[in-house]
């Protein structure tokens, strides 16, 4: 998703007032606020899981397998008699972590490459962008599956695989922003004042490219959460007995007609979280977009 740039601000002293202005714009956007609330709720669930979850998520109870939702087990029990609600609550940890960590990885790899490439320009930029284009041409999920299979199934490896696979998008976006920013007058001015290139890259270009990158990050978290669920669904994510929403869907699949609640609730959890991040990303985008 490409984002049009807001007017770049070089002076950092303007930041607080601009932030307040953005915050006001953001809060007026009810959908975005709703997204923030959803994400916040799931973060609370993840952080306070031990306090909120009614049962131990890995405690099996073999006399209670595949019981339908009831007053005791609101979301029913799974094939080993574990409480699905508790597993969904604990699963928020794996999913949120997967979303945030893999985007951090993608950001850390992609953004420096993009900024440096855009800044240097010329043949170097052309070559780097060809490589980025090539990476972008390979379907994201196929890349992630192959990488996750290579690294071995675990939550950490799934995050690394998703992070690496989504890095090219960040490089592309950061480079595009850099191209726009580097011809701005204040960059020229900084140059003539003898500011070191490293400082220009970090303090001027990165800082000004950050808002659209933040929007992209928020949306990428949504994508990454789905990707983690997909990998776990294929058996390449969180390992038993710990739960992630994707691995719960994988386990629930063989009991689909027998215990549909094993598949329904983790899916709803994924859907809501991803929706939250998408609403949030959209809201940020609108708040930062000067067009309206």
């Amino acid at each position, binding site marked *: 998703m490409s984002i049009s740039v807001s007017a770049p601000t070089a002076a950092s002293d303007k930041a607080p007032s601009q932030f307040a202005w953005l915050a006001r714009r953001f809060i007026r956007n009810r*959908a975005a606020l709703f997204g923030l609330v959803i994400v916040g709720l799931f973060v609370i669930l993840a952080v306070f899981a031990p306090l909120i979850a009614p049962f131990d998520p890995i405690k099996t109870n073999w006399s209670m397998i595949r019981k339908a939702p009831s007053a005791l087990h609101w979301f029913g029990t799974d094939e080993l008699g574990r409480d699905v609600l508790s597993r969904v609550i604990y699963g928020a940890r794996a999913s949120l972590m997967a979303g945030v960590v893999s985007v951090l990885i993608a950001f850390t790899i992609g953004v420096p490459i993009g900024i440096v490439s855009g800044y240097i320009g010329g043949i170097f930029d052309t070559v780097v962008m*060809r*490589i980025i*284009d*090539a*990476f*972008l*041409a*390979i*379907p*994201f*999920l*196929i*890349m992630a*599956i*192959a*990488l996750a*299979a*290579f*690294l*071995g199934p675990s939550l950490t490896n799934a995050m690394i695989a998703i992070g690496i696979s989504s890095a090219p998008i960040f490089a592309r976006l950061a480079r595009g922003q850099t191209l726009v920013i580097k011809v701005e007058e204040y960059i020229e001015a900084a140059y003539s004042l003898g500011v070191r290139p490293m400082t220009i890259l970090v303090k001027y270009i990165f800082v000004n490219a950050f808002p659209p990158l933040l929007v992209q990050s928020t949306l990428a978290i*949504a994508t990454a959460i*789905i990707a983690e*669920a*997909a990998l776990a*669904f*294929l058996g390449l994510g969180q390992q038993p007995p710990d739960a992630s929403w994707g691995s719960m*869907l994988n386990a*629930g*699949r063989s009991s*689909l*007609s027998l215990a*549909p609640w094993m*598949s*329904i609730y983790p*899916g709803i959890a*994924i*859907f809501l979280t*991803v*929706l939250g991040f*998408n*609403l949030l990303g*959209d809201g940020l985008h609108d708040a930062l977009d000067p067009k309206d």
Partner: protein
Amino acid sequence: MFGFLVQRVLAAIPTLFIISLIVFSLQQLLPGDPALVIGGGEASPEMLAQIREQYGFNDPFLVQYWHWITNVMQGDFGVSFRTREEIGPMLAAKIPVTLTLATAAMLVSLVIGIPAGILAAIWRGRGWDHAVTVAALSGISIPNFWLGIMMILLFAVHLGWLPASGYVSFFDDPIQSIRTLIMPAIVLGAGLAAAMMRHTRSAMLTVMRQDYVRTARAKGVAEKTVILKHAFLNAQIPIITLATLQFGTLLAGAVLTEQVFSIPGVGKMVVDAVFNREYQAVQAVTLLSGAAFVLMSLLADVLYFVANPKLRTKTL
């Protein structure tokens, strides 16, 4: 026009080359010793050595790459370790399956996305607009494999209306073919329909702010004509571009859809190949989908060029 095309095609060549390098490196990445997979659990050390020799696993990376790429150029993608079938024809049999699925999904997304987007743009800020926007975001946020499971649960297991899985060629049995395609097409098309709707809405909004639309309105042209003739005709350019570009994404999305519905397409082939360590099949599929993406971008450029009268007259 011709010069533009040549330029774009030439630019695609280095990209394709780099894709092939990346794709080939995947072999190095995949874990497990391919010789062990080929030899099976009981293979003796001598047999493993022989397998490594036979398949050239001992050669340096570039030598292996050279062998592979020259074979690929001649249409030889290698032989499956597991079934001893040739990968080229196997893939050729699967491409129409995935294309059928992707086309059906594209249809679903166009039929839902474009009208919804136009209506949302017309009634901007009103109830319908909000409803469509929420629906679109939901469409993007729903994990499509889960949507697939839920649809199987409802329409196949509970109601028994549709077959739970499988693929029937349209030429063998058109009715059965459509019945098996309905759920996967909706599942795969849902996300794209949402993207399409959002894109149509914003493209329409942009166009409707333009002077010629305002002029047409001022001249008293009927609103329907304004919307369909003036606004949509111009808004379709970015929509076409998106649709073409998204076709590649559909192929990737097919990976999970095919897995859920047991559809024997390219996506299912690549997942099975990853798990069976069928390196050559993984390479073939990845290379092909990369190439398809490049081709689609090229096509999008061309369409953009053709559909945009202003651009055309400028260069001609």
